[in-house]
């Protein structure tokens, strides 16, 4: 029972950690077709803006958006847990 709970806790922690900047899921987040439904207002505003920038389709725009998104979540990990869960849900 306790082991199960510990496993759940570990799984949850894993799911909420910020993926490495090179993780391919970031590309989906900033340039993929999936509509994002985020929790915090700054994340909603920033991610919408970043996704608009990638509609130009060039790789430089996508990479810049990935960097900006990753840096935002890295700096604001404590206040954006709900957003990370919404974006990366089940973890890697």
């Amino acid at each position, binding site marked *: 029972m306790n082991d199960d709970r510990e496993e759940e806790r570990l799984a949850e922690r894993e799911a909420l950690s910020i993926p490495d900047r090179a993780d391919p899921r970031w590309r989906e987040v900033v340039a993929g077709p999936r509509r994002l439904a985020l*929790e915090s*207002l700054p994340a909603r*505003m920033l991610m919408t803006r970043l996704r608009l920038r990638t509609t130009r389709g060039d790789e430089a725009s996508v990479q810049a958006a990935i960097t900006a998104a990753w840096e935002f979540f890295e700096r*604001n990990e404590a206040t954006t847990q709900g957003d990370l869960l919404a974006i990366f849900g089940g973890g890697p």
Partner: protein
Amino acid sequence: MTVAGAAVMIAQGRPLLVAGDERLLRQLPLGPWLGGTIPYFMTDDGGLQTAEKVFVTALPDACVEAELRSYGVDELEQLPRDYPEHGVSFVIMPAGASVVTRFAREGANWPGFFDRPLVGWVAGVAVEDIGRVAPLVFDGTTGKSYGDRAGVLHVPLPRTLVAKTEIINLFQPGPGDVLTFTEEGFSAVECRVNGQPRLLADYLTERSADLQWPLVADFSGASINVAFHAIDAVSKRVTFHAPVLPGLEYRLAQPVTDYATKFMEEFERRKVGPVFACNCVFNYQYANLKGRKVGRATGPFSFGEIAWMLLNQTAVYTTLERVSP
């Protein structure tokens, strides 16, 4: 509150935000307060227009210090670099100034812009004085007023408090056409309607669109408005109170009735007690909020609301929440 009452609070040394008529703001003593001109207020007794009282937002006792800075249009990019390490920044800008335009168009691109709560409002004047009287921002530490600078009160918070900024937007996108734009800006001549090129002015005229209802776009779960300003029948240029963004899908808003009740219900549902709030002067005007309460929020009605972005026809508020350090 009277000028004398505000002066007493200023003498206590706590950082304050003050909204009111220029004549009253000029009478206040020096101190750590940031002010902006406006004669419209959400009060405990309902919406009020007055040039005889000021509205004072006093921050909680935990906010013992603050740094007040002003930024010219060429200095705005510095703003997020001045954010407190842990805290909240309150901003007031004068309506019609180039700082508002640059902030609205470029702010989101500045590194670290979204890293701390940035909340505030755009100062204005009585509607009948638009074009005759200039909106102003006041730096209480110097007594100077500005018609072309943004004033910002950077407030560090103890680690036991976290500031959260949210919005209440009563408008939802309607079920109709999707409007998109190819260029960012406070005005547009052309747009696409469901992908087809159109003159926006013609489209709005054909639809008999009521310009009281804004354009609404979905920002990853948040409905964000762009309010209409006017249609120039000759040039066919449609002007807005906030910039439209290229590629974003907008829809005309569904009409809203009984703003006051809906604001009240939403504040009750969220069970929040804001330390700061503002609301759009269009909500005051269009919904005739004079004498009507709009929930737990009190503060100025403004010529634009700021929650990072420049917002329109929206209520903005900030709460302080206790957390384990």
